[in-house]
């Protein structure tokens, strides 16, 4: 039970975190009536995950060898792009976003922000969605064939716990003042996106599109990236116990460039 719990919690945590943040963003924009964009994005992400899960079981040969990996890499880099755009947008419109509620709604709607939040929800769910669907489906069919309920219950509990964490993120986010909310969100998105970016680079290395390399350092004795805590650290800041030089460089470069985008313009456009 504990093993399946860890798997689904680990797979679901990142999606839950992103969903919590984008729902909270809408709340802070004063645009709660636009929650449907995020709900729609998340729901479509789930549908796409199920379709992908079905497609994978139907595919074979080179399509199965490479297809899902190319989709996964594309989703990762799309998510990085969307999150970067979102952080950059928040910093450019910081002044308006800190204004009164009407102004925030007008600003967010005028620049067509809200559908991008839906896209972030979509990529967040779709990224690990197909794997989670296949995993849970395996648990369901094993249980149907007479295996004990333990493993399925653990898997379901993992998904539920991830959802609860997402809700806690949302709830905590809406409690913060508008000013603090955008600062905290920018920092979290910066770290998540940097982690995703380096994960994407690592994936390209694993697929042979970037030159392979050995681990540049090894901190697995301190914190394994396989356990629960390491799993959270992976979802939140892209922790890797044994990163390659390309992954480290990509992470650092992303932090530098995105920090400039997220925080550089604030002095020019935002009030003190």
């Amino acid at each position, binding site marked *: 039970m504990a093993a399946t719990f860890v798997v689904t919690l680990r797979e679901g945590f990142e999606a839950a975190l992103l969903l919590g943040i984008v729902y909270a963003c809408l709340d802070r924009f004063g645009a709660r009536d636009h929650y449907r964009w995020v709900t729609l994005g998340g729901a479509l992400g789930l549908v796409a995950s199920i379709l992908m899960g079905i497609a994978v079981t139907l595919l074979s040969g080179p399509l199965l060898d490479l297809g899902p990996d190319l989709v996964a890499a594309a989703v990762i880099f799309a998510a990085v792009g969307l999150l970067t755009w979102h952080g950059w947008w928040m910093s450019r419109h910081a002044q308006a976003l800190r204004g009164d509620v009407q102004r925030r709604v007008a600003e967010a709607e005028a620049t067509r922000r809200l559908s991008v939040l839906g896209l972030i929800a979509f990529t967040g769910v779709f990224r690990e969605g197909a794997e989670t669907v296949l995993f849970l489906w395996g648990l369901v069919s094993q249980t149907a064939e007479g295996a004990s309920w333990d493993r399925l219950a653990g898997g379901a509990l993992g998904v539920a716990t991830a959802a609860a964490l997402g809700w806690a993120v949302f709830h905590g986010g809406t409690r913060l003042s508008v000013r603090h909310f955008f600062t905290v969100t920018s920092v979290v998105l910066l770290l998540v996106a940097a982690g995703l970016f380096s994960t994407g680079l690592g994936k390209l290395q694993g697929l042979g599109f970037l030159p392979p390399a*050995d681990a540049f350092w090894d901190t697995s004795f301190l914190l394994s990236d396989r356990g629960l805590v390491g799993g959270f650290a992976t979802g939140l800041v892209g922790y890797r116990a044994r990163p390659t030089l390309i992954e480290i460089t990509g992470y650092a470069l992303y932090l530098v460039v995105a920090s400039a985008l997220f925080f550089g313009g604030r002095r020019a456009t935002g009030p003190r």
Partner: protein
Amino acid sequence: MHRFALLLATTLAAVVAPSAATAADPAEIALTIEENRFQPEEVRVKAGAPFVLVVTNRDKTAEEFESRELRIEKVIPPGKTVRLRVPALKAGTYPFVGEYHEKTAQGRIIAE
């Protein structure tokens, strides 16, 4: 940038058209998943030579072949076989797991 584009193009060509390379086809190593265990659990390969892991899942449920060291994360549906191209490895031990049954599905590649 040009060099990177060229590298990308050649790698793409190498991955998409593996049949074109006949002279130096990488060695194939078969790996089976049965009862949520890998068979064999220990794979020995030559260090410095790329190879292909041909993994067949004989179980009725999906498994995810995962190696953080090799940066491979690959779902293998029940009854399916996937070919995982692994680049030349330095001598050493590279563990892998079946993420969906991590307690039993464990193995390692030993490059020597």
